[in-house]
């Protein structure tokens, strides 16, 4: 069939028209062999514009379409849909970006026009070698994997589980409830933690649509949104493969290890505890059945709580330490009313509706607050000495029976490995990184993988629940049961004849989409997993791996015209 390439240049209102001499572009390309029609239009992405394009494709019987307009990121899909409606295979289309790459960045109109001509010529040259690709459809899997069964993971699981959607809740510990399970009471209302948590745990256990997998860890994740294949291993061997459509990462936090900071005397001076250890001591199921005791069995008469332990080292404020320090003071005051409690802080962080009142209420119970810098803990006379620099800069010492270190939060151990398995990023602090701090706070760089709770950064229970709800909401809104997915069509393929089995492609594949066929000694692309990044095609030394929409010829002819 004879080639009939249609070239349409979009004015994009004044955006392109004012900066590029469109008439010159049209004149330069209209006589190129195979170009059946070359025209301009004021706004091709508008409804009228799309209608115009569709009618033109049909009227001229176009075999290929070139649109010179904006970035493919903005309207490639728009015009591909137009092709489809007009009965033209959408992959026989090429978009030349003459707005972002010409009109918007080049001052001189002549220069911008010259460059635009090159781009349009290149697109024409390339599109001739395009191969019609066929779309496929697969049904999305609505099931969800939730990693971590703390408050965030539990909340997300409960919201997500339904008759049409199974939730696999994977927890590496033997019981669920996460860090909150170890708390006696919760700030600011000092209500019982178990009263809040136990009903939730019961709901999880009883929910037929939640499959709880304790003492288990995720080992591998392949695939993409709507079509993940996950390998989960139970402690002691047993491996299971799960198919899910989305993943919620709610792996929580751990306490910062203070033994690396000798100035706090931790592990060397008696009666110095971390906040986590004190929580356990205070807990009715703890080693002392909830009695707050010194090492010698006496009740403390004075306790210092040191804020911001590890803040400088970690490089961030853990948000809840000030608040839980107030809570610890309340524990102490309610158990030993005559105890003297002193908080050593450098800055108090108490944002949010209820917390100012909580602070004042705690202060009202006779808790002292001392603003201090350079805190050091040492053996003191008959107790623990807190050495510090006061607000006026004087060095002071005060003795206490007990010292509690309000330690920073850090990501749960194993986060780095999990990030690698899931192929999602972590920030410099080590927490999983959100897609956008403001606009995508629970999404990740990988569609279909969400983060909730302290896995994303230090936060309290209420914010963790908010994030769990947000992640669940995202999934409920997008992964509707019965939804069809279109796997990437622009994928790679590997020629059996050319492949020499060097496995270079496997080592560079970011999606684990290539396997090795031992029998034939060649690499094979799994087309459902392949996302068409082209790494393999670029790295393949023998030219066996090629990208269907970035073939050697397509790139060659596009470059030739761009550079000529």
């Amino acid at each position, binding site marked *: 069939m004879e080639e009939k390439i249609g070239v349409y240049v979009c004015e994009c209102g004044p955006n392109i028209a004012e900066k590029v001499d469109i008439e010159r572009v049209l004149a330069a390309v209209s006589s190129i*062999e195979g170009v059946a029609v070359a025209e301009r239009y004021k706004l091709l992405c508008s409804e009228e514009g799309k209608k115009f394009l569709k009618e033109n494709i049909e009227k001229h019987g176009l075999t290929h379409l070139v649109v010179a307009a904006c970035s493919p990121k903005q309207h490639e899909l728009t015009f591909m849909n137009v092709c489809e409606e007009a009965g033209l295979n959408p992959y026989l289309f090429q978009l030349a970006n003459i707005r972002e790459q010409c009109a918007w960045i080049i001052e001189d109109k002549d220069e911008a026009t010259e460059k635009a001509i090159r781009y349009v010529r290149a697109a024409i040259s390339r599109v001739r070698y395009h191969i019609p690709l066929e779309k496929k459809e697969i049904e999305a899997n609505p099931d969800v994997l939730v990693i971590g069964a703390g408050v965030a993971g539990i909340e997300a699981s409960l919201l997500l589980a339904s008759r049409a959607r199974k939730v696999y809740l994977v927890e590496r510990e033997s019981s669920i409830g996460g860090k909150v399970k170890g708390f006696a009471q919760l700030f600011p209302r000092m209500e019982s933690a178990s009263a809040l948590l136990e009903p939730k745990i019961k709901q999880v256990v009883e929910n037929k649509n939640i499959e709880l997998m304790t003492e288990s860890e995720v080992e591998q994740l392949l695939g993409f949104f709507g079509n993940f294949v996950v390998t989960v291993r139970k402690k002691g061997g047993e491996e299971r493969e799960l198919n899910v459509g989305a993943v919620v990462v709610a792996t929580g936090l751990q306490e910062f290890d203070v033994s690396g900071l000798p100035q706090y005397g931790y592990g060397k001076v008696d009666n110095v505890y971390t906040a986590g250890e004190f929580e356990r001591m205070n807990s009715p199921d703890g080693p002392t059945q909830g009695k707050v005791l010194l090492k010698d069995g006496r009740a403390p008469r004075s306790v210092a709580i040191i804020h911001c332990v590890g803040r400088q080292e970690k490089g961030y404020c853990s948000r809840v330490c000030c608040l839980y320090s107030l809570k610890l003071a309340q524990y102490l005051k309610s158990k030993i009313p005559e105890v003297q409690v002193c908080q050593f802080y450098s800055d108090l962080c108490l944002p949010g509706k209820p917390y100012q009142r909580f602070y004042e209420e705690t202060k009202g119970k006779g808790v002292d607050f001392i603003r201090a810098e350079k805190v050091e803990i040492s053996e003191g006379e008959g107790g623990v000495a807190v050495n510090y620099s006061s607000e006026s800069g004087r060095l002071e010492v005060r003795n206490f029976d007990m010292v509690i270190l309000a330690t920073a939060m850090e990501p749960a151990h194993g986060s780095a490995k999990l990030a690698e398995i899931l192929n999602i990023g972590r920030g410099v602090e080590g927490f999983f990184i959100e897609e956008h701090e403001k606009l995508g706070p629970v999404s990740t760089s990988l569609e279909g993988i969400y983060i909730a709770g302290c896995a994303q950064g230090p936060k309290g229970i209420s914010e963790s629940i908010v994030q769990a709800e947000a992640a669940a909401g995202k999934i409920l809104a997008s992964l509707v049961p019965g939804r069809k997915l279109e796997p990437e069509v622009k994928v790679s393929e590997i020629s059996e*004849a*050319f492949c*020499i*089995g*060097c*496995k*270079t492609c496997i*080592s*560079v594949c970011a999606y684990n989409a290539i396997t090795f066929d031992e029998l034939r000694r060649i690499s094979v692309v799994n087309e459902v997993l392949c996302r068409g990044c082209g790494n393999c095609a670029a*790295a393949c*030394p*023998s*030219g066996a791996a090629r990208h269907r929409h970035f*073939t*050697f*010829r397509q790139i060659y002819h596009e470059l030739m015209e761009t550079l000529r």
Partner: protein
Amino acid sequence: MAKFLELDKGTEAGIRELLGQSLRNGQVKAVFALRRTTNGAVNYSLITDPQMMEEAVPLFPSMPSNAGQLLSRLTLKGPVEGPVAVVVRPCELRALVELVKREQGSLEGFLFISFTCPGVYPLKASANGEIEGKQTQYWEAVKSGKVVPEIRPTCRACEHFIPYNADITISLVGNKDVDKRCILFLNTAKGAELVKGVGGKLSEGELETAELHAHREERLAEKKSLYDQGQLSGLGMDGLIEIFSRCIGCRGCRSACPICYCNLCTFDSFDYEYEPSTYEEELKKRGGVRIPPNTIFYHLGRLTHVGISCVGCGSCTDVCPVDIPLSAIFLQVGEAVQKIFDYIPGKDVEEDVPLATFEEVELTEIEE
């Protein structure tokens, strides 16, 4: 200090005896080395008959083909059932390591014997017994620790003449008694095991003597002059076109290159054939087109494909019927690429080929 064994006989005779004995007592199943066949030609052979070891000439200064390529072929479908003792040059061993990194063979089952390599004569000198006539001159130069005259240009310019990954290293360069004493450095337990029972004297010493360092300096100077001669930098496209214009497209360089390991070459594929319309377009622009086209493209393509792993063995230049100084170009360009990645091809089989590694820090060198 390294352990070495000293045998009271000429180096080549010593090797022959060691390997012959190892075959006889079953310590090795086979020997892979250069061998002079009855018709006088010297080629690599796999030998199991101890008697045939008499024909072995493991130190013969010629490289009929890069043994790395041969050993890769030998183990492509699976490792040898060893142990097989292999006597090869450092660059051949390096080529094999590069190929193994790409799953094109296996090191398993081999016991590698290599030597401080004085280099080889060009293949063209193997006709009419020319190399035989040069033996005296060759070994005199080896003894003196000087760079041997008339060897391959890349051999003269080779700084990697001390083998990596050899179980046994034979001392050649600068060994004044090379025809009287055989000195074997035992680098691994496997190497030490092999020489048990062969007699001789075990001592400790250094392989890399001051003489060897001086020799390296000499080779580096040779390399510099090779590069200066080539005047590659600043050559530009026109210069390259000129150099490659005499290429007859025989693809001999590709066949001889140990790193070119594809079954089918992408440059032979349909993708690289011109469309009739391309000829037309090119003719419209230039008025005349070289037939067959793509010569420069083929050479630059090969350069990008093998540059990172080029071991500078010189086989390509050797087989080129029109004397294009391929190995000088490949060595220099290859070295420039290797430097960027701090990569010495064939040094460490565990080190990934840079192309197949990922680092978050962006490579900015090429932008500058």
